[in-house]
């Protein structure tokens, strides 16, 4: 089983991103689960969402404390949340930032991957909503979900022109980290 923890701020679509991972993984014929960290949702407040992917039906309901992957949508969270907490040494953490990774001073043995998802989102979506871009980066860095399945899950969620733009954002991020 692979466990993924997403960190973001309320309104950045972290819960949606976790749900899309679950839909995409199931499209890959694997079992999946996604759920929010059940906070009192407020725009801007730190939020978490979780996803699990496995080859057997998933029964466990507890939150994720030792993730294989961490996705951080907003680098300012590093000052307030221990985003790498419990991350497996063999895992990966993907952070949206334009800063060099050495400057982040993350306490983890896991591989740190940075991507300027905000820049990609601003160029393509014209909005600083980075969740789909970060999914592209996650897909490229982890290969835990297939790109085609991810695209299909995105197209189900976002129709028409908005869907196409999100697909382009995913492709751009995917290629950057692959």
């Amino acid at each position: 089983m692979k466990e993924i923890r997403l960190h973001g701020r309320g309104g950045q679509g972290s819960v949606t991103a976790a749900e899309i991972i679950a839909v995409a993984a199931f499209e890959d014929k694997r079992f999946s689960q996604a759920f929010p960290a059940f906070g009192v949702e407020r725009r801007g407040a730190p939020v978490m969402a979780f996803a699990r992917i496995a080859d057997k039906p998933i029964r466990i309901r507890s939150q994720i404390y030792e993730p294989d992957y961490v996705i951080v949508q907003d680098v300012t969270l590093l000052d307030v949340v221990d985003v790498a907490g419990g991350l497996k040494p063999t895992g990966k953490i993907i952070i949206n930032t334009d800063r060099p990774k050495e400057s982040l001073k993350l306490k983890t043995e896991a591989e740190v991957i940075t991507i300027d998802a905000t820049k990609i989102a601003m160029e393509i979506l014209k909005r600083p909503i980075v969740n789909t871009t970060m999914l592209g980066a996650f897909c490229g860095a982890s290969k835990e979900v297939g790109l085609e399945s991810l695209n299909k899950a995105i197209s189900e969620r976002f129709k028409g022109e908005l869907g196409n733009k999100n697909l382009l954002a995913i492709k751009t991020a995917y290629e950057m980290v692959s």
Partner: protein
Amino acid sequence: MSEKTTNMKVVEGSYAVAHAVMCCRPDVISAYPITPQTHIVENLSQMVADGDLDSEFLTVDSEFSALSVLIGASACGARSYSSTTSQGLALMYEVLYNVSGMRVPIVMNVANRAVGAPLNIWNDQQDAIGARDVGWIQIYAEDVQEAVDATLQAYKIAEDSGIRTPVMVCMDGFVLTHVYEPVHLLDKELAREFLPDYKPANILDPAHPMTFGAFADPSTFTEFRYQQFEAHQKALVKIEDVAREFEETFGRYYGGLLDGYFLDDAETVIVTLGSVVGTIKDAIDDMRSVGKKVGLLKLRSYRPFPVQALRKALKNANCIAVIEKDVAIGGEAGLVTDLKSAFYNSSIRTPIIGFVAGLGGRDITIKDIRKIVAKAEASRGRIESEFEFLDLRTEIL
């Protein structure tokens, strides 16, 4: 993945349940939105607005009104549905008795949540367990699929002419209402076959006047109550029958009144209900792999409380740990008290330890389950404590 997964879809628990309600074709829906039940009624409202569900959706000022209008609707022969949680269920309290006493077969999903004060929107089961004596049948779901299936089964149980008793289908708030996971959404036509239209023998009809909820003086009140008690006894059989019938139609079965996991040779048995069952099953797999004979009894039907089935299923256990997300302040907690009471006049003398866990959304992990099992095993010789709050943070008391 097997063939069985081919028709599954990854959807939110609330959507899956709303879809199940749609397949039950209620004539009247009335509900008041409250976290974490909101997505269920939002989805239903959307289905009605889109024309996918031909129901009267009545928006009201409170949960009290929501359930009250359904009494009238159901008494007129309309299949009726509501959903609530926590303070909403508490606000319905008086009406809950009226519904069960008037024998109108309303079905309601309860998205289990803590009851304030202090204010807490997270999951536990205080709301429904606190309403255990109001005369409603209560069925608890382990996962989204069970919540979906139990919703359809609930109408078949409730509307049975020998039972005519309302049913709460309880699903853990957030944990099941907000999770995305693969689910078999119900097939509309199969659901119609399984659950035909509601055609009660006695309804409010000006052409044939009748009274529901009439005055009952001391000469008859006991008999009204007795009939409700008797209906619950009949439901013990009906719940199992309906689960089997459901299996014939849909191919899924996970116990009627209760279900076991590695129960047959288990020395230590955990008894619980709701979504924590999944985490416990994973913990049991771990413990079994190192030779620990641990098993699980999942209670599906809390009301009626299946005394005989529990005695039979638990007769070989050496020790029993009850895990529940509620507390009966001043006593112990609902499930552990009921279980002890079920055993007292039997030959079973197995130690039972009650653990209150997961209150107000506190996470229950595999590590917690291992700790509970270790404590229960240690109690075989001598019970140190028969009831406790798991992981109490004594440093902040």
